[in-house]
């Protein structure tokens, strides 16, 4: 049975390594600041005992004040999973660091989030449209997108 790790347990380990990186830790998820996303993700992947080598999915949600990017991580070795979140503010050009260096499965999913939500990922080599065409105006999955047709 895959155990969903509580955010609070991991928060304890992370506080020693990266002080002030954690914004909120609840039983089912862990919220970190966007500057610390890449170091925290590297720590989660490489630490023995955690070993989150499998990225299940990346999503983004539009809560009007901020965008929240949600990472579902799984460890095949220990059969446990974790939900990692980060937020980015501003509607004009929100930016988050890309985790493609750690998990290549992020390649298409980050392009999809860029295409449909408008969040840019620093460090992604081919950040361009994946589902919509080049001259498409706007980002459809945002809550303030109204299609004309």
């Amino acid at each position, binding site marked *: 049975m895959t155990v969903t790790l509580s955010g609070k347990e991991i928060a304890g380990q992370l506080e020693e390594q990266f002080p002030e990186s954690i914004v909120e830790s609840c039983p089912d998820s862990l919220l970190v600041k966007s500057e610390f996303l890449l170091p925290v993700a590297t720590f989660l992947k490489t630490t023995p005992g955690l070993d989150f080598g499998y990225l299940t999915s990346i999503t983004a949600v539009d809560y009007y004040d901020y965008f929240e990017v949600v990472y579902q991580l799984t460890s095949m070795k220990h059969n446990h999973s974790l939900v990692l979140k980060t937020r980015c503010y501003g509607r004009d050009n929100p930016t988050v660091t890309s985790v*493609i*260096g750690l998990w*290549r499965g992020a*390649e298409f999913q980050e392009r999809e989030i860029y295409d449909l939500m408008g969040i840019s990922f620093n460090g992604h*080599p*081919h950040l*361009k*449209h994946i*589902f*919509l*065409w*080049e*001259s*498409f105006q706007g980002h*459809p999955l945002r809550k303030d*997108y109204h*299609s004309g*047709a």
Partner: protein
Amino acid sequence: MEIGNIGEKYVYSETELDRAEGEAIESLKAHSQQPIPDPDRWLDEELRHNVLLTSVDAMLNWARRSSLWTVLAFPACCAFELIATAASRYDISRFGMEILRASPRQADLMITAGTLTWKMAPQIRRIYDQMAEPKWVIAMGACAISGGIFSGSYSVVPGYNRIIPVDVYVPGCPPRPEALLYGIKMLHDKISKRSIVEKSKQK
């Protein structure tokens, strides 16, 4: 990067290709705001009284409808009902239609099986233009008739008749193979009413 190399550039300029594709899509979208009217007049009373089908017409129409070759262009779910119609239980080969041609130049029927998106629309228009006359189109499924369950979406064309003229509409989501065969039979009836005299008058 320890696994694979993902940062390499391509030989061609991908941004130029993508931009050209995007412009083609936007211009097609701007020109397709109204549905295209039905190509042949089905029930035109005046025509029926004025044109008599000769035996040459009857033979030509019989030859054309007895082996319609379909072009392979099926985007989505209805494709599997089309393939099931072509498989052994609902054998479409008894109508001479078991050939699904990859090249549009050798086909004369397009069965549109699947949702059409604006990104795919220029390609479907190009395939239709490449088919030789006489050619017919069967719109299969709810998505092909009006956008179906996805109508109202930002990227779905509300029906194939915005892009290409459609002859027969087969409703269903997806239509059963029997429904598709009924639609093909309707197309056979339509073909048998054609006359070469009328066609030359149109030109």
